[in-house]
């Protein structure tokens, strides 16, 4: 059999492995490398991973903390996945969520005399709208000038964070040493599901947005057009779809969803806008989307996993004194492994050989 055919067959076998198993293997390798790092640094691996697991799922409170950390990741992960569907890599979630958060806080404070039924949707809408506008910029630049969105979105992250800080400090700051707005009115706050956990129904909003985006891609012609551009821009154009338009649309939707991450943080957790509040939800969203294989429901599962790593990581740091940055390492490794289809193939062949005595063909 010629070498080329072999490679094609290999890739065919590969797509036969279900996405879920594939992602699981990537997580397991990442956690194993994490274990090696913990061991080499002189910590107890079992102690570390026990605290990680217990901190994420051990009791109702810990579970609620996992879900709390999951919520923004659903939005930022979904935002990255939406871009991917159109062949775009939106690394700008961080900037988009800062704009969403600031817009939400301003609207909630400006219209504080409205009742919840109007104020909550209005505040959410503001976050999505402004996040969408910030997302539209790199989309437009990509469509019109070809400027690669990976670089422009990263630059727009810096600019977005600086710009929201500037606006806050000069126009919306509450008197005092901390750069933050006043607290938003009760009417704009999301109610807690379990008292004292800060876990609100924002997580259901996340699931709702997942359903909407899933329907968008599966059932609507816009969703079809967006994906067609992602799969083959030239063919899409031949079929009468305007790739430029779809690129801008995709980035608007993506930015709007990332903006909602900021909105729900302000309305459910912080109850105000504070500078530098995000510990990098926009970037973790990249790992979430890659691990979820850019499928909306995959994003939900991946967000749960990273939410658990985040919550568990905090208790690991607290009780086993192991730096939480290990979770960032795991995220990076997961992205690398999921991005590398041939690696899993090679591993599974090695595995087969070691079991089957060399009969791998």
């Amino acid at each position, binding site marked *: 059999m010629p070498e080329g055919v072999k490679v094609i067959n290999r890739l065919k076998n590969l797509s036969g492995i279900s996405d879920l198993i594939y992602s699981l293997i990537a997580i397991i390798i990442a956690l194993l490398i994490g274990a090696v790092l913990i061991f080499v640094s002189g910590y107890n691996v079992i102690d570390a991973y026990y605290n990680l697991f217990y901190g994420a799922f051990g009791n109702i409170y810990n579970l609620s903390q996992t879900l709390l950390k999951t919520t923004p990741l659903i939005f930022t992960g979904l935002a990255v996945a939406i871009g991917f569907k159109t062949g775009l890599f939106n690394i700008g979630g961080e900037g988009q969520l800062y704009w969403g958060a600031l817009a939400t806080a301003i609207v909630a404070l400006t219209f504080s005399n409205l009742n919840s039924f109007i104020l909550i949707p209005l505040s959410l809408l503001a976050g999505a709208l402004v996040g969408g506008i910030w997302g539209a910029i790199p989309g437009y630049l990509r469509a019109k000038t070809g400027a690669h969105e*990976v670089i422009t979105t990263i630059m727009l992250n*810096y*600019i977005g964070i600086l*710009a929201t800080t500037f606006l806050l400090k000069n126009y919306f700051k509450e008197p005092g040493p901390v750069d933050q707005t006043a607290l938003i009115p009760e009417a704009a706050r999301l109610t807690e599901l379990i008292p004292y956990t800060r876990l609100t129904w924002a997580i259901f909003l996340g699931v709702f947005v997942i359903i909407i985006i899933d329907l968008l891609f599966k059932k609507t012609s816009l969703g079809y057009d967006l994906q067609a551009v992602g799969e083959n821009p030239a063919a899409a154009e031949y079929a009468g779809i305007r790739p430029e338009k779809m690129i801008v649309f995709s980035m608007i939707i993506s930015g709007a969803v990332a903006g909602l991450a900021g909105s729900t943080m302000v309305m459910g957790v912080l109850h105000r806008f504070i500078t530098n509040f995000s510990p990098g939800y926009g970037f973790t969203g990249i790992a979430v989307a890659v691990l979820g294989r850019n499928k909306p429901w995959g994003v939900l599962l991946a967000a749960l996993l990273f939410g658990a790593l985040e919550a568990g990581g905090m208790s690991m740091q607290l009780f086993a004194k192991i730096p939480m*940055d290990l979770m960032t390492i795991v995220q*990076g490794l997961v992205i690398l492994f999921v991005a590398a289809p041939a690696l899993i193939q090679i591993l599974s062949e090695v595995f087969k050989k070691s079991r089957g005595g060399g009969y791998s063909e």
Partner: protein
Amino acid sequence: MNDVISTIFNINTLAAAIRMATPIALAAMGGAFSERSGIINIGLEGMILIGAFAGVLGSFYTGSPWFGVFLAMVAGGLLGAIFALFTIKFKADHVVAGVGLNILTLGFTTWLMQILWGSRGTSPNVNGLKEISIPVLKDIPVIGKLLGTQSPLVYLMFILVFSGWVLLFKTPLGLRIRITGEHPEAADTLGINIKGIQYFSVILSGILSGLGGVYLSLGHLNWFSMNMSAGRGYMALAANIFGQWNPLGGLAASFLFSFTDAIQMRLQSLNIGIASELIQMLPYLLTIVVLAGAVVRSRPPEALGKHYETGK
């Protein structure tokens, strides 16, 4: 107003811009090699960061900043090798793998900093590189002020960028690198070892970025801080595109970025009534403007970002 202009646009700002261009120009040249061979290298950011960290690590344990420089090149090269392995052998999407690598490096350097020195913020102070004066050069007016007394890495950068240009455009190896990224099928037919060329180019890009990184930590400072690269890898990538995948062009573009950055820093210190947040935006805005304006006439290597399998 005249005061402001004379404080900003003077020879010291230019000298600062030359200093600050050094890490970006080195990484941009790394990007040029990698992309000329067909591999998109978003991982430059992580390679700069690991270089900055390894440099401090080396200087911390041996007391010698030059050992730090050596370690930075080794670490950058290693990261380049890992990136090459994933993109070439494991067929990872270049952009996704690059972003993964950057996140991994950020986590890894911060983790190590906390394990070794108990702080996520900054490392302890170590021995940095001393500036050197070039005898005759330093006495020439203007040029002496700009280039007479600089960090040795600044001089090294000029030498390397020029050598890199020679290597890429005037030698058989450079021709092979360019053919590999332009037309791998043709390169294959000519008997060029495509994967070998790509491994070489990506590892070289890691070494150069690592060297750029160590300039950040030991060049005119003497410590490492969390996420020290702060987007310079992405700026380098933009500079590489603006510079037409040519080390000399990349140097010119890097100088443009760093000049803006130098002006930005001066404006901040002047306290002229413009909010510091707005001033700090300048280099990032410039990167976007340059990228959006430049692509009209740049053409990336034909096979950039594609996976090529011999005989397919």
